[in-house]
């Protein structure tokens, strides 16, 4: 800090002071880094959790199957072999998937090939279990398991050997004219006899059970996203409307966009009109209106939503996105924002226009509004962010109509639908997916966000 240098330091010489300044800056950067970890760290570990097969595993690992490049490559290749789709994988007719598994066999035990099965497995808990999907087990053919290699190995104090087995899973094309379906996943269980311990495989398994004897994969042909971002893919694949079968999450995203953009549009037009009238036009009772608005800003939402709920019910707007839009309406804070902006532009410009004989409406839309672009930009971003994150009004208006939920309400629905089963992977993944638009907006327009808070709070 510059003020440090001003301090009378007695016998401390200039070199010493310079050293102190450098060290001070170092400590401040260290403190800022620590604060950064505090504010962003929780999101980072939660993101790691969202990639895991079991986000609640203990102890918490930062290195696991889904973050290893070795598995990314393998998943990519297997997805290619399974359905020609390296990203999302699948199991299509004509697939031919070679797979290797290695076991540690202690000395004195005769290596025995494991049993390989393609089980019938329904997708996840909650909503996913409702739908019938194409089961890979109906079409998959597993070749006999053959031994590839043996080499001596020592694990801890146990002496033994590593035995590698290979098998191929294939999906024969039918001779008949009928089209065979493609399965989205190829579940796989490999069970070794007692005494043998699972070591490695072409792709790391999603679960290891019975002391490493049973290894199981959610899909042996997952593709890159299907393996690394499994929970994210599940959000779209599994959480579907039981009536229409369409993805809930996509629907909610569209709803959120619709409500937010409508709110932005309404506020762009009407908040700036009202702000202009308050800033520049002659209006009796203006002072009274101000006092009233300030007072109303301190009244809690809860003291008003009951009547608003009944009003929307009488208008049959409950459960509809329009109901939410009507209630959001024109935000007082945005009116104030625009009022402040219009007070800052010089009066001469409008006066010139008015002398030219233009009426206030033309003047406003032709001359005033185009000048207000920076303020309108701030208004757009603040409104969009506020409404995208709005939970209370959505919970009051939309509750019960799952198809019409916006994302925050949808997340709360996921929490009740998947929370009981402890399916944290899907819940965390949906939380992160719902943040994407705001994060993009934030990265691009961060100045508006950061400056918006300080200026609107201090001057409003």
């Amino acid at each position, binding site marked *: 800090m*510059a*003020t440090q240098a*001003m*301090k009378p330091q007695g*016998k*401390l010489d200039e070199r010493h002071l310079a*050293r*102190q300044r450098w*060290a001070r*800056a170092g400590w401040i950067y260290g*403190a*800022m880094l620590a604060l950064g970890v505090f*504010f962003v760290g*929780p*999101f980072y570990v*939660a993101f790691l*959790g969202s990639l895991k097969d079991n986000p*609640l595993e*203990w*102890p*918490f690992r930062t290195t696991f199957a889904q973050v290893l490049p070795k598995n990314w490559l393998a998943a990519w290749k297997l997805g290619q072999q399974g359905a020609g789709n390296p990203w999302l994988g699948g199991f299509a007719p004509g697939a031919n998937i070679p797979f290797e598994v290695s076991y540690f066999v202690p000395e004195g035990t005769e290596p025995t090939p494991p049993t390989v099965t393609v089980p019938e497995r329904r997708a996840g808990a909650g909503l996913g279990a409702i739908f019938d999907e194409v089961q890979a087990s109906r079409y998959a053919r597993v070749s006999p398991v053959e031994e590839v290699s043996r080499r001596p190995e020592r694990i801890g104090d146990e002496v033994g050997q590593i035995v590698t087995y290979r098998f191929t899973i294939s999906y024969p094309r039918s001779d008949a004219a009928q089209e065979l379906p493609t399965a989205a996943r190829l579940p796989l269980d490999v069970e070794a006899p007692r005494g043998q311990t699972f070591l490695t495989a072409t792709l790391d398994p999603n679960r290891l059970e019975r002391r490493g004897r049973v290894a199981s994969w959610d899909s042996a042909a997952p593709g890159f996203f299907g393996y690394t971002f499994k929970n994210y893919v599940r959000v779209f694949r599994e959480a579907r409307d039981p009536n229409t079968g369409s993805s809930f999450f996509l629907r909610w995203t569209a709803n959120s966009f619709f409500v937010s953009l409508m709110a932005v549009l309404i506020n762009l037009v009407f908040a700036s009109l*009202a702000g*202009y*009238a*308050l800033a520049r036009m002659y*209006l009796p009772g203006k002072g009274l209106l101000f006092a009233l608005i300030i007072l*109303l800003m301190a*009244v*809690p*939402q*809860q*003291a*008003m939503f*009951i*009547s608003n709920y009944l009003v929307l019910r009488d208008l049959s707007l409950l459960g509809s996105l329009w109901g939410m839009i009507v*209630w959001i309406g*024109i935000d007082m804070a945005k009116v104030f924002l625009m009022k402040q902006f219009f007070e800052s532009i010089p009066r001469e410009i409008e006066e010139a226009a008015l002398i030219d004989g233009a009426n*206030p409406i033309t003047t406003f839309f032709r001359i005033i509004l185009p000048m207000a672009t920076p303020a309108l930009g701030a208004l757009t971003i603040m409104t969009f962010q506020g409404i*995208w*994150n709005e*939970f*209370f009004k959505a919970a*009051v208006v939309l*509750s019960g109509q799952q198809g019409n939920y916006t*994302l*925050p309400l949808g*997340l709360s629905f996921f*929490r009740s639908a998947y929370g009981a089963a402890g399916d944290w992977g899907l819940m*965390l993944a*949906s*939380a992160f997916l*719902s*943040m994407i638009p*705001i*994060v993009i907006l934030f990265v691009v327009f*961060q100045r508006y966000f*950061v400056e918006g*808070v*300080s200026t609107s*709070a201090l001057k409003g």
Partner: protein
Amino acid sequence: MPSSKRTEALYALLFISPFLLHLLIFFIFAFVRTIWFSFTDKTTLRDSYNFVGLQNFINLFGEERFLLALQHSIGFMLVVTTIQTFLALATAAVLNQRLRGITFFRTVYYIPSVLSSAAVTVIAIWFFQKTGFLNTFIGWVSAHSPVILALVGSFVLAQAVQVGLERMRGLPVAPTDPALAAISAVVAIALTWLLGAMGLVGPREARPPEFTWLTNPDSFLGLPIPLWSIVMLNIFTTIPTLMLIFLAGLQDIPKSVYEAAAIDGASPVQQFFWVTVPMLRPVTFLVVTLSLIGTLQMFDQVALMGDSAPLNSIIVMAYYVYNSVFSGEGQIGMASAAALVLAVLTFVVVFLQRTFGISEKAH
């Protein structure tokens, strides 16, 4: 009135009428109607209702859950406002430097405030699970406590020795001298590493976590443990906003004031308490007021917790009102009365803060 004035007023009315209409229906009418409903026995199911006078208020203060909500709301408000005001001011003071890259950090810290309460709360519920990250982290710290103690101990020792040596040489160094502290930090790390390599200090074995946050029936300082989880969550998400407000206030303080204080011989700590804090009074007033209103009306985080925690351990006033309307018969009369209690409480708290707390004017 000249006709041009009248025309202008008509146009102004036209411009402002959509806003006024919305204000009239969704705020003024809504508030008046809530006051009216609070004296009736209206429910969502029935259309007809009767005037019951103050019966709703009397019933409310006899109901266990309402009293619980009231107690939680007030406790939550006091705890969260106190902690987050201090932390936001401290963070802002750290960030108020003219150093390279400071804008980047400012932006990064704002992230928790930008994201939706729904997404953050879902993540937080995961965080607070029994084997969630919070318990994992606490377990890690407690397992590594010997190492951390050794680190801190050797740091303090190294710093004391260095400051002592410098003072013997006649240099008036402060005990917190940053340059010496940097050397002490390096010495402490090396020493701890050495002790670890010698096998004298090492982490203990971590045990699976036992403590539960969201389903814990116990209380701490009068508030249930699950509510403390929401306290932490709320502080985490609100600090960034308050910090930015403080930061804007800090940057408005003229540098000359600090320079004058420095010439008078004030140390940085003294400058903070005798210059920064008094000059920030108006901003602090704003932050405290915003924080009081925000915490009293906190709804999202409780509603989103849902059945992750027992309702009676996290219920607050705002959620009580919502829950009364949307559960059972939909007791609109009771809910309105509770909403009015919340509104009055808000006004009283803001008034008290204005009168007895941090005042608006700078000294």
